[in-house]
């Protein structure tokens, strides 16, 4: 039986208590998207400043539980300074970490895909969120900011 310490690692509580990159950016020139978790009312707004294919600044606003707040804080530090392509790779890697995979409904096992998605991507602190997988209800808390980031990136593409 997984314990609370698997879920609430110290680094997670640290990001929850002292969230990084809190705030807003003026839109435009920045891009933003809003994400909701309809089950619990958590909401997050992700602001992204992109210059020449590079994420030059990230800000996060909204509110939610420690897992969603810590995950969005960690996401902001991981994505800042990366190229848009690297940000996409990070999203895929994080979702693989959360056992959510594009091929999961069709494939029997996504082990090889998971390895491929994690390859060459340094998740660093984000790996502390892996304990969330043992608490399936909370996976949505952890992925909220990442799905919202994906929304912003999608809008960039169009």
């Amino acid at each position, binding site marked *: 039986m997984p314990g609370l310490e698997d879920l609430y690692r110290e680094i997670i*509580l640290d990001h929850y208590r002292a969230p990084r990159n809190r705030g807003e950016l003026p839109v435009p020139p920045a891009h933003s998207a809003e994400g909701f978790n309809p089950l619990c009312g*958590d909401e997050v707004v992700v602001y992204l400043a992109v210059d020449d294919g590079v994420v030059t600044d990230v800000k996060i606003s909204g*509110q*939610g539980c420690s*897992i969603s707040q810590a995950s969005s804080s960690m996401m902001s530090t991981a994505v800042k300074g990366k190229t848009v392509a690297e940000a996409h790779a990070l999203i895929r890697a994080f979702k693989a970490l959360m056992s959510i995979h594009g091929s999961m409904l069709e494939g029997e096992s996504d082990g090889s895909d998971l390895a491929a998605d994690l390859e060459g991507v340094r998740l660093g602190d984000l790996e502390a969120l892996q304990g969330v997988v043992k608490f399936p209800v909370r996976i949505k808390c952890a992925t909220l900011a990442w799905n919202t980031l994906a929304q912003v990136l999608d809008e960039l593409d169009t």
Partner: protein
Amino acid sequence: MGALDVAPLKGDFPILTRRVHGKRLVFLDSAASSQKPVAVLDAMDRFQRERYANVHRGVYTIAEEATSAFEDARRRVARFVNARAVREVIFTRNATEAINLVARSWGSANLHEGDVVVLTHMEHHANIVPWQMLAAERGIVIRWIPLTPDYRLDLADLDRILDGASLLAVTAMSNVLGTINKIRPLADAAHAAGARILVDACQHVPHVTTDVRDWDADFVAFSAHKMLGPSGIGALWGRESLLDAMPPFLGGGEMILDVDLDGFTTNDLPQKFEAGTPAITEAIGFGAAVDYLAGIGMDAVRLHEKRVAQYAIALLRERFPSTLTLYGPDDVADRGAVISFLFDGIHAHDISQVLDEEGVCVRAGHHCAKPLMRILGVPATSRASFYLYNDEADADALADALERAARFFAL
């Protein structure tokens, strides 16, 4: 009337002997759905083993037995809320479907562009969204009764709000605040204004004696699963003259008297509103749940819950004087045992997670009442809701678990 002796009563609920994370299961989420006594589980099991068949169709013995058991359940439910006639009780999927039935059927016949439906700020989404759908589709107008600072309906402007309205749709007991609304004066005011009144009694019928005639209501919606019965069945009680005049809701078998290539004629009440094979076994369970509650006596249930709510509220205030905010009236005289709270600096989700480690089940989130949460200015609350199988020891377990959460998240 004597106080409830909860200890032997707990023995009627098999799930309460379960352990979670090595701890005694402390179930404090009955406002979401209640646990089931052996009497209900056995009635459903026996029915399926011994006399299950479709209802209102077959002429063979078990089909007749099934039909008579099904209709007998309806009679028990009707008696439980003091309906004038058994045919005034329509079985639905749940209270949500009961409200949607009224919005679709009565609403389509009676509400037109510009007509006013009055709601309150403490409604559940189930009593908001069906009306918002009608607002979007046919331009009805929604007016709102606000709240007072002590979490009751602010009736100061009631006459003005009801002026020219077609319907008042109001909860009898808030699933977030626990506030019990006095329905009779609201019904009188609505009728004086020429409006009908629909009561969302989902949280009321399981906990407080409910008398639809005494309320002088027009429609009353409730769900079996919140009153010790199974999920998948609920009821709409409606004033017979209104139900008779309403067009059907869903079309299909059971709801017709005759069908030919050119059209159909509707069946009589209540089958008119029960298209398709109903939740037969669940209806049997609903009837058994009502019998169980009636056997204990709703006055005894209410008295017990008042006592436990008073104990729990006082305990939480005493143990967490500066870190815990309660949302709901203080006086248990007009509130149920639904206790919503916010813990300083700890999100409701995280509270709920730590409590689960201690075997304590509480709800975290917006409780399907997002407009109310916005008005309270909170993103989410924790909610502990007590029922007849909860006692002071459960309140103690809640407080101890909260203590652990506070230590764990010490900021």
